[in-house]
């Protein structure tokens, strides 16, 4: 069953067509990588699916329900999570407070004005639990802006997962990481997304082929090919458009 579908998705920025008849299908439980050269429209596709923009045309369906043009908070509430290519945490809050924000959302604690958040034992425990799982318990009380780049990226990814989404959309989670950090990040993603559906934009082909069950190639705003890794590796069209350049 498909957890996410887009049908005939178009998007333009004041006339400049960035997405062009995109029909994406993501099956429940799979790890789906989206690759493509710079400017192919990958992040725009993410933005349209996760509610940053409404598409100019077309439909987005999530869990069998049409969600075209829904706002991010509504999508999060029905189980979609997202991380950003450019790290987007609460920079002046501590690592703990960053993750706690996600936990509060997951527990649907929003307009609670009658208890101190520090006194909510279960929230604190759950947050500390998450911190331990992502190896950030040592940096618990450090402001996010003081974290090392690799740890900051881990926090970014973990915040997308803290709301316990069924589908997580990761926009270049390993962007700017060293080899070593990339390795750790991939392990982290593998561990945290157990049993979830993942859509991931990635440039690092090693990461793509080691992580993905299925790959979609986006080129000039259009889907060039979609299939299992082996098939994509062999596809001539893909080689011409993309893989050839990077010599994989």
């Amino acid at each position, binding site marked *: 069953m498909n957890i996410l579908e887009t049908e005939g998705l178009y998007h333009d920025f004041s006339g400049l067509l960035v997405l062009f008849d995109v029909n994406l299908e993501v099956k429940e439980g799979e790890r789906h990588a989206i690759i493509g050269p710079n400017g192919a429209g990958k992040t725009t596709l993410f933005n349209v699916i996760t509610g940053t923009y409404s598409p100019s045309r077309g439909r987005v369906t999530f869990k069998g329900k049409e969600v075209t043009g829904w706002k991010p908070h509504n999508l999060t509430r029905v189980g979609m999570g*997202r991380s950003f290519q450019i790290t987007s945490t609460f*920079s002046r809050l501590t690592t703990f407070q960053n993750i706690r924000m996600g936990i509060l959302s997951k527990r649907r604690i929003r307009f609670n004005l009658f208890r101190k958040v520090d006194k909510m034992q279960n929230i604190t425990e759950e947050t500390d639990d998450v911190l331990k799982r992502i190896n950030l318990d040592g940096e618990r009380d450090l402001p996010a802006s003081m974290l090392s780049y690799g740890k900051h990226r881990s926090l970014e990814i973990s915040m997308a997962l803290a709301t316990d989404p069924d589908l997580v959309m990761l926009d270049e989670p390993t962007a700017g990481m060293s080899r070593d950090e990339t390795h750790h990040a991939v392990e982290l993603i593998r561990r945290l997304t157990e049993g979830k559906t993942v859509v991931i934009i990635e440039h690092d082909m090693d990461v793509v082929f080691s992580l993905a069950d299925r790959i979609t190639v986006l080129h000039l705003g259009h889907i060039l090919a979609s299939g299992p890794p082996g098939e994509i590796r062999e596809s001539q069209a893909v080689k011409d458009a993309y893989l050839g350049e990077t010599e994989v």
Partner: protein
Amino acid sequence: MRNNLSRWIYWVVGLVILAIYPQVVGIYYTNVFVGFAIFGLYAVTLNLLLGYMGVLSFGHAMFFGAGAYSTALALTHIQGFPLLPALLVGGLAGAMLALILCPLLVRVSGTAFAMLTLAFGQLIFVIALKYREVTGGEDGVGGYPIPSFNIPGVVSIDMTDQINFYYFAVTVIIVCLWLLWFYTKTPFGSLVVGVRDNAMRIDYLGFKLPQTKAVNLIVSGCFAGIAGAIYALFQNLVSTLGVLDIGTSFAPILMAYIGGLGSFFGPIVGSAILHLLEDVTFRITEQIELVNGLVFILVVLFAPMGIVGLLRQAKAKWFHKEKVS
């Protein structure tokens, strides 16, 4: 446990000092204190927007003024209007004004927010100035009866007595400050701080951004209105130039900035410093605004984190030194 005990001791000592303060310093400084406390509360409500949510309200006087005018008008026109409802009317007026404006205010941030609040602040100031049938224009509304604090059959305290009023005002302000402090500690309070740091992420974590901003605006407006109401009871005179003009909007910004935006109590410290400064200045020269302006410039230049920030820095340095030695 020890921590808890010392906290209790602080509270008790603080309350005792507040209780004997008017007996020690006399009427004049009792009134100075009330003025400081009113503006302390008012500056904290501004900091709820500036320090906590990251938007600058440049027309905050409209909430303060709405509260002050509502209380004054209620007391003028309704005979025998009681004391606590008079306060509530002020708070309600501030909250209502915020509620009316928030559909527009929640859409913007940064400079646009500052300008929009400035525009509304001036709009309300000019309207109040022109509709003198209601507001008395520049002369204002004054001389209304100040009700007694009345619990039927138990007690009736005369509020025109300045010492009595001191106790009443200080009690109300402490309760308000405690409520606001608690508010910043709730899960919702942490959300507001999240809006300051990264509004987009708040949306992506599943929280409704406009509603979150709106609630914080209304809370801020409501308590600014209560501060205005206490002011109306304290002065027994409310005029457009006194409660709605741009100076009344600048004052809490200055206080919050001097005290330090990063802490809840910073604006109160700022209010204390400005009131003390004003008192001292007044003995030397009448140019209080000149001194205020210079303080503004000096603080921005040399203490961008405010006094509380400076103290924290000094403390960190001090303790660091101790550890080393």
